């Protein structure tokens, strides 16, 4: 259990800009990781994303998830900064 694993996180708008225009980043993580743990690792490993990540939500397979949601392997993971559509 808790095998090492990498998770790809999709970036948009200001988050993508903070990552020099990249549309995704890789987070080194492990199995059975929760959404809140992943957010912490994302901020630790990609410092430029930290300020906006703190105000963002995580979407797994295109649904917002709660902090204790365990991220399934193979799922689409997206960092959703505060939205401003309309």
């Amino acid at each position, binding site marked *: 259990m808790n095998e090492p694993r990498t998770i790809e996180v*999709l970036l948009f708008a200001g988050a993508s800009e903070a990552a020099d225009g990249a549309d995704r980043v890789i987070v080194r993580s492990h199995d059975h990781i929760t959404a809140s743990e992943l957010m912490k690792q994302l901020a630790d490993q990609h410092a430029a994303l930290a300020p906006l990540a703190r*105000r963002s939500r995580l*979407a797994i397979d295109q649904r917002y998830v709660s902090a204790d949601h365990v991220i399934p392997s193979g799922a689409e993971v*997206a960092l959703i*900064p*505060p*939205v*401003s*559509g*309309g």
Partner: protein
Amino acid sequence: MPAQSTTDEDFDSVHVCLTDEPLEPMIAATSSEEPWLAHPDAGAMLWFHGVTRRKTVQGDRVTVTKELSYTAHREMAVKQLKELAHNAVQEFTLHRVVILHRLGVVPIGQASVIVGCSSSHRVASLDAVATIMDRLKKDVPIWKQERFESGDRQWIHPSPTTDDPTTH
């Protein structure tokens, strides 16, 4: 609501579109007969256009927008817009709901979002359009970048304390 809660009739009552094209011609093409909102029991039809504004006034400060540019998590945004529309049909007893959102550059005076509703009575459509816009701006993964006359560009990520100044 999950997809299984929507019926076939409900499905037909909803039209959602995320597009890189101008929205006005899409509406104009149907506006004289309004097939998107038409229903024999509809007594009220309402069309809201959210349009790029030139000036934004915040207290004493006036900023001049050149244009807005929108991006989205497209697949997720379409799913959420559909869900939003279906929920509104149930919640406000609507006959039809249309939600169109434009992506890419939207010049001054053009619509970034158009919401249409029809209902038996006007209050339901007025409440529905207000609610759909509130929820869209809170939850749907679409972002705007403001581009000023000065050349500056800025992604808008509103927080409870710093609201989106360019909001419609």
